[in-house]
């Protein structure tokens, strides 16, 4: 039997466009110090450290080695991960597996990115296969625009629906002290009149580029109950990979096979048959407003073609039936190597009742997803109880 695993503490930096006051080592140290303090755990009690990052953004190999003193890795067992956008959730998944397998009791997971040190759009291009895809790459924006165009062609979503998602994110982010973008006054009209980057994607439909770090303390059940009054239990974890090339799954936003498969696998493990009713909150990796709409249907929050209706009815707003991204999500904060782990940390905060001004009342079950590479999915479900 695998051991039960819980999150007992989290720490984040105040995410922002340019942290020129710190280098990577100093940035990561802020999140780690906060997570250890939140969990009330000393570094000596951490058995191993899992650290994730996407090094093309910083432009040098092993930024985690260079910053090891900042994250407490000196002579400790540690593993570095890079799975692209999903790296934060992959790093949590690996931490979970180590504890569930009984190899370590307490693991510190870290994700970080310092986008301002490099050139984000150019680095993202290296995701594309150099022979087949890179020549025609147009950064994150052009690719998402193409994907969004396939989704719009299926019907049921409009610019206004996307703008409503963008507004929801920025209003939520304004209540999250760590969120990069804080736009409490943003209106739907502002989004629809923002600069057209690549139809249908406008400037305010896209995520920002952020500097930030996040750290999460995970531990086995015999320690979790002693260390934390209300831990967030990781009840189910999974990953699913798409085929290799972007054109292999042409409708890759409307039909995200990896996300559909991964989410259904989780729902089965915890016995969820109606995610919209049975999940209390979701923290999902939505890199653009259009992506969030597509994910509503791919994650089973609504039927295909009804994502626009979901945002129109306010189902995913704070106070709605299933609030999505109370933190403001990726649309407010995107330090890529940290982003997916921020989803998990935020889901954990909701379950632990520690989300402050962006707390959803009485969260018992939360979904967190990571998204990256060519439509790869990591996903997990966190709950307040162990069964």
């Amino acid at each position, binding site marked *: 039997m695998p051991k039960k695993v819980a999150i007992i503490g989290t720490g984040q930096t105040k995410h922002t466009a340019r942290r020129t006051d710190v280098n990577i080592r100093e940035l990561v140290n802020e999140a780690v110090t906060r997570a250890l303090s939140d969990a009330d755990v000393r570094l000596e009690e951490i058995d191993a450290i899992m650290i994730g990052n996407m090094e093309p953004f910083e432009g040098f190999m092993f930024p985690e080695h260079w910053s090891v003193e900042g994250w407490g890795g000196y002579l400790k067992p540690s593993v570095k991960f890079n799975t692209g956008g999903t790296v934060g959730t992959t790093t949590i998944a690996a931490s979970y597996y180590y504890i569930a397998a009984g190899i370590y009791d307490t693991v510190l997971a870290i994700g970080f990115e310092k986008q301002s040190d490099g050139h984000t759009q150019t680095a993202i291009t290296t995701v594309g296969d150099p022979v087949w895809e890179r020549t025609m790459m147009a950064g994150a924006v052009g690719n998402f625009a*193409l994907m*969004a165009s396939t989704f719009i062609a299926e019907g049921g979503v409009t610019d206004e629906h996307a703008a409503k998602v963008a507004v929801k994110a920025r209003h939520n982010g304004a209540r999250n002290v760590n969120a990069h973008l804080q736009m409490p006054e943003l209106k739907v009209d502002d989004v629809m009149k923002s600069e057209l980057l690549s139809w249908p994607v406008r400037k305010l439909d896209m995520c920002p580029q952020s500097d930030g770090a996040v750290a999460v303390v995970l531990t086995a059940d015999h320690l979790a109950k002693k260390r934390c009054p209300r831990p967030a239990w990781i009840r189910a974890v999974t990953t699913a990979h798409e085929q290799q090339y972007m054109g292999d799954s042409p409708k890759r936003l409307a039909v995200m096979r990896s996300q559909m498969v991964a989410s259904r696998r989780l729902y089965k493990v915890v016995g969820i048959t109606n995610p919209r009713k049975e999940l209390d909150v979701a923290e999902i990796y939505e890199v653009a407003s259009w992506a969030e709409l597509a994910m509503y249907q791919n994650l089973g929050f609504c039927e295909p073609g009804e994502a626009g209706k979901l945002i129109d009815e306010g189902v995913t707003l704070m106070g709605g039936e299933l609030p999505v991204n109370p933190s403001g999500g990726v649309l407010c904060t995107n330090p890529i190597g940290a982003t997916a782990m921020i989803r998990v940390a935020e889901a954990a905060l909701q379950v632990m009742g520690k989300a402050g001004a962006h707390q959803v009342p009485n969260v018992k079950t939360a979904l967190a997803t990571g998204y990256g590479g060519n439509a790869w999915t990591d996903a997990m479900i966190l709950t307040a109880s162990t069964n």
Partner: protein
Amino acid sequence: MAKPDDVIRVPFLMKMEYRYALGAYASRFFQELKDHGRLIGIRCPECQRVYIPPRPVCGICFAETGDWVPVSNEGVLVGATVVRLPFIDPMTGERRPVPYGMGIIRLDGASTAMYHFVDETDDAKLKVGRRVKARIRANRQGNMRDIECFELVD
């Protein structure tokens, strides 16, 4: 300690050269494109999907692919956009002139699609469902740029 305004940023430009080996399947595709200006795919004997890029294994069936099959240089737009955001061209390091059209194109006879440039910058014309045709260069090198772009077909 330095105040935030006093910190120093050091600029660094990194130029690296790579030479990617295509492998047997892509080499055959690009040789055919270079020598004859023709597009070919490879079929999975189990699910009958025709793949471009060609590959030795169908990821869905985990079966060894079989016959090479000709694929048309015409197809349909599955996705389309006009890129207006200035962007560094990864092949040259120079800023790519905007606007330019892009599409996700499913060629007739292929099950998969490809991303490529489309010679159209009018959002009203560049729409999903439109027919397109590859503009093959006269002077070909054996790479994706042998397809200069796609153009809308009336």
